[in-house]
């Protein structure tokens, strides 16, 4: 990846992270850890990869995105706002009465959201359905989805994977946001989904393992995915809470909002990181 582009993406991702923190702080609720971990993946998809148009969010042959780990909604919202699907100011209304920005993504209310998600394991099935529809009706859009690693404990994920593998849905790319933490502890402590790569391989996927907080690796993986003739699972090692020092790899920041003091600290860190890129 060209240095300039990488820097540009890193700056956008930094703004996305600010949007995540601002929204969750304003809402006094939400899921910062898993939003921050997948922020780079979402940024790359919306700013570099996917065929989408913020002025025409329902464009018929657009690429689709399903946030199967729907609780990372603040990341999706911040990316959509950065991309221009709606005003950035709306992020401060996250989770408020009357806001389009529901606690979990709502396709009826939010421009650019392709599927309502939140109940884990369900988004991936919908993504499979979209990919199947494209194949069946002769459309050439691709479908991208981000799942949590804890989400892999849901049996429905594997029902969906089995179907996608058997139907060779090569227009489907799943990212596993492998930040290794879920509410009750590490994924190993709770109910280990490992080895994730071998499982997806066994279900008929091409598997690519990357650092999911590195734009070079995200780009390489997605380019490779375009050449696969099977569905693709990108196992993305990420840092939960990435970008905010006290949230990184900290299980207690799965679903908690920072108080005013910690909010200021988080924003100061992100602003400093942004300034260093300028």
């Amino acid at each position, binding site marked *: 990846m060209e240095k300039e582009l990488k820097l540009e993406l890193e700056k956008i991702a930094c703004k996305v992270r600010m949007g995540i923190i601002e929204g969750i702080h304003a809402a006094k609720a939400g899921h910062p850890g898993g939003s921050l971990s997948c922020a780079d993946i979402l940024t790359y998809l919306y700013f570099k990869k996917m065929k989408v148009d913020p002025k025409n969010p329902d464009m*018929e042959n657009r690429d689709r995105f399903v946030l199967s780990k729907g609780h990372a909604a603040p990341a999706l919202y911040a990316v959509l706002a950065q991309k221009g699907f709606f005003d950035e100011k709306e992020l401060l209304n996250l989770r408020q009465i009357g806001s389009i920005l529901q606690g979990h993504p709502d*396709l009826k209310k939010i421009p650019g959201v392709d599927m309502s998600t939140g109940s884990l394991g369900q988004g*991936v*099935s*919908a993504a499979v*359905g979209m990919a199947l529809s494209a194949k069946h009706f002769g459309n050439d859009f691709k479908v991208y989805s981000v799942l949590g690693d804890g989400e892999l404990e849901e049996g429905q994920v594997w*029902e969906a994977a089995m*179907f996608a593998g058997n139907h060779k849905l090569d227009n489907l790319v799943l990212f596993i946001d492998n930040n290794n933490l879920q509410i009750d502890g590490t994924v190993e402590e709770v109910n280990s989904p490992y080895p994730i790569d071998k499982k997806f391989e066994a279900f008929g996927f091409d598997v690519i393992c990357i650092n999911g907080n590195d734009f070079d690796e995200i780009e390489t993986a997605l380019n490779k995915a375009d050449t696969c003739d099977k569905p693709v699972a990108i196992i993305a090692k990420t840092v939960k809470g990435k970008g905010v020092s006290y949230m990184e790899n900290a299980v207690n920041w799965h679903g908690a909002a920072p108080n005013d003091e910690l909010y200021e600290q988080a924003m100061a860190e992100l602003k400093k990181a942004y300034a260093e890129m300028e």
Partner: protein
Amino acid sequence: MSEVKSVATRAGYGKALVELGKIRDDFIVMDADLAAATQTGMFKKEFPDRFYDCGIAEQNMMGIAAGIATTGKKVIVSSFAMFAAGRAFEQVRNSIGYPHLNVIIGATHAGISVGEDGATHQSHEDIALMRTIPGMTVINPADEVEARKAVFAALELDGPVYLRFGRLAVPIVFDEDYKFEVGKANELRSGSDVTIIATGLMVKEALEAYDLLKAEGISARIINMATIKPIDKDIIIKAAKETGAIVTAEEHSVIGGLGSAVGEVVGEEYPVPVVKLGVYDTFGHSGPAAKLLDEFGLRAVNIVEKAKKAIALKK
């Protein structure tokens, strides 16, 4: 009484899918390894390229259907009522109901008349479950004719639809020229002493009850309530006003089904006695369907009994 032809409503469902497949190609049919039983197998045979078997994975099937529907295409999914409404309830609620997607759920083998398979497969809760989902249309056809027409009507609706079909062959009630309209009940017999509101295979029983009551000098109004949601309030309120007592009859639990839906309308709009006939908070068990319908009291004679009770409750 003259002999009438008996056909299962699920057969009407399968036949309608094939008929629809011949005139439009903008929909997909899916099943979860029950195509031979649900009768989507008829469509599969005719249009193998437009049929997808999800295997024994009803939850995923609902999600896939939702995904297809987001792309602007229609999709019809099938399984037994127990698994479509029961096992996959939350998928139907969150992935189909909440985004209000155009998914038609063709649920067969509903109720005690499943017979020999027994309690694990006899769904008496599906109407209750499905009608609690905002925006869900719930239709329970009385016979094969109505079943076919309901499938055609469902494909024209906006939003999710739950179609409830039975395994057992049941007598034909309607002529081919019968006009089915979603949300509109129809009066099959006029009467003034009591109204019997029936759904599904209980409609035929209600018509028999009409004759039995007539022989005893009781004038019963018979209403077929195929659409349980949105329910036809007007016809219920009119019946409450004009006959002063109502009996509901359904092959479903008395908790949450047609009886509850009618009771909700009557209680709020024009209170009169509503006596419910259905399955009384119990599981079924194995046996031949006809014997089970006798044993669980889902017959014309039971409706007659309830009708008398309802009349006695009038002030």
